[in-house]
């Protein structure tokens, strides 16, 4: 279809050439949110073999505007993007960045994330809660676990999924975290451990819910011709997609499946010219154990109710046939609040072959899919180390 033909013109036109986290990650009461941004940008530019002064496009989501980042960084960008639709905003910005680069609206784009999610250092919380304040907060809603569990119990009701199956996602992800020196939790985990952990909000024990950490991360993109001159092997952006459907879970039409995720992934796959069976490696936004299986179902990798099978029998774990969340995920590696930057960094590193003990052999095509809010927004990126 014509829309996809036009989108395909963007395929492989730009590359991720730099990717890095902040100097430290975890619980950092001595570090401001801005410092997490600036460390990440500095590290990602160094990783690319570029100077901070080369950056002329700044993309960020969250509490700090791209103007503030630019000011603190001491650069004057000619292109900025502050799209903030939840944690997947950074994945969505890959699409925005390749479009801007393609049209020479900027030459070196940095997508940056810094969040003092745990320690709240240097943070002003500004959030319009007027609708939620009227219709949700008075009943005790007010944090992601109070909403995402609703999607999860409905999934269990419709498809018969079980607490044991969700727990398997945490177990698989922890097996990867054990191989990542930067992961916060690395001890082995069993399904029984997950089930008997402290109950936070049924159906979720604490081990079904992501960490809350302080960290930053950034990636640098440039056009494919210039990418060849950067320090590392370029990672081509073959396809991207984005969509937003709702904010409140009450407005989610296809609950428990995500229409935004379906739309976003379909567009990204069409632009990249790939289909479900082509991926060697998958990164999915895991704020809750039920999230990745529901995303796989929404994207069409599995029938509704069958996404959890991807996490069973070692399929998604080290040595498995389809590795998922190889950094240890939001569940065990890090989760600042807006996690979407980190799956992009991990996919880049896997495609470069930099992952040491957790390196997936022969990775050529990686999928990054993230959500904003409660599966409300979605961003998808199809990345490859070959054109």
């Amino acid at each position, binding site marked *: 279809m014509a829309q996809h033909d036009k989108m395909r013109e963007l395929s492989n036109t730009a590359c991720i050439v730099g990717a890095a986290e902040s100097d430290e990650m975890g619980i950092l009461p001595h570090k401001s949110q801005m410092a997490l941004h600036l460390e990440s940008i500095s590290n990602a530019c160094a990783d690319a073999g570029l100077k901070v002064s080369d950056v002329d496009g700044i993309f960020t989501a969250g509490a700090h505007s791209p103007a503030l980042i630019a000011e603190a960084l001491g650069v004057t960008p000619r292109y900025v993007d502050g799209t903030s639709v939840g944690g997947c905003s950074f994945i969505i910005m890959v699409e925005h960045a390749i479009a801007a680069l393609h049209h020479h609206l900027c030459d070196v784009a940095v997508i940056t994330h810094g969040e003092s999610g745990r320690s709240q250092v240097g943070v002003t919380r500004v959030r319009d809660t007027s609708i939620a304040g009227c219709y949700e907060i008075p009943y005790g809603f007010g944090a992601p676990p109070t909403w995402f569990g*609703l999607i999860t119990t409905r999934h269990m009701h419709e498809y018969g999924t079980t607490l044991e199956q969700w727990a398997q996602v945490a177990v698989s992800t922890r097996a990867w975290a054990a191989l990542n020196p930067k992961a916060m939790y690395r001890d082995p985990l069993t399904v029984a451990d997950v089930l008997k952990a*402290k109950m936070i*909000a049924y159906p979720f024990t604490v081990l079904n819910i992501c960490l809350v950490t302080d960290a930053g991360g950034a990636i640098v993109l440039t056009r494919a011709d210039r990418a060849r001159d950067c320090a590392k092997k370029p990672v081509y952006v073959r396809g991207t997609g984005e969509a937003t459907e709702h904010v409140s879970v009450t*407005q989610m039409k296809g609950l428990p499946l995500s229409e935004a995720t379906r739309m976003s992934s379909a567009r990204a796959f069409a632009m990249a010219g790939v289909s479900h069976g082509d991926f060697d490696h998958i990164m999915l936004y895991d704020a809750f154990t039920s999230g990745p299986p529901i995303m796989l179902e929404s994207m069409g990798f599995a029938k509704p109710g069958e996404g959890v099978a991807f996490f069973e029998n070692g399929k998604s774990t080290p040595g498995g046939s389809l590795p998922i969340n190889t950094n240890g995920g939001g569940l065990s590696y890090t989760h600042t609040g807006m996690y979407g930057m980190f799956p992009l960094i991990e996919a880049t590193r896997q495609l470069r072959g930099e992952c040491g003990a957790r390196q997936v052999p022969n990775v050529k095509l990686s999928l990054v899919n993230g959500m904003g809010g409660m599966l409300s927004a979605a961003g998808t990126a199809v990345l490859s180390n070959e054109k």
Partner: protein
Amino acid sequence: MEQLERPLPAPLAPEAKPYWEGLKQDKLMLPKCKDCGKAHFYPRILCPHCHSRNLTWVEASGRGKLYAFEILHRSFNPAVKTPLPYVLAMIELEEGPRLLSNLINIKPDPALIHCDMPVQVVYSKLNDNFTLPFFQPAEAK
């Protein structure tokens, strides 16, 4: 200062006024589109189904089903003083719209609570200005 169990609803949009006024008289009012005939919630100035601005208000039956739930064991909002554990609920009203509330008058036990169980509204007056709709298992007919 009056001591309340939960935070009062935040600033009220004018388009939602009939909802809040209705609750004070123990009525659950819903905006309904005069063009496509569908009700919606939360109140807004156009119909999210057909985008018409030709809206009216109808009184809901107060009956519906428990579409999804959670049982909260840890408070995420210190202003809500309801003793834990309690049930967070997504209700699908007979008229179609879904809303969030609490399921009350039932033991907060996943063995007793299941999606699609029939529920009915029960009103709770917070103060002279605010009454909120809660839901309980529907009485057998």
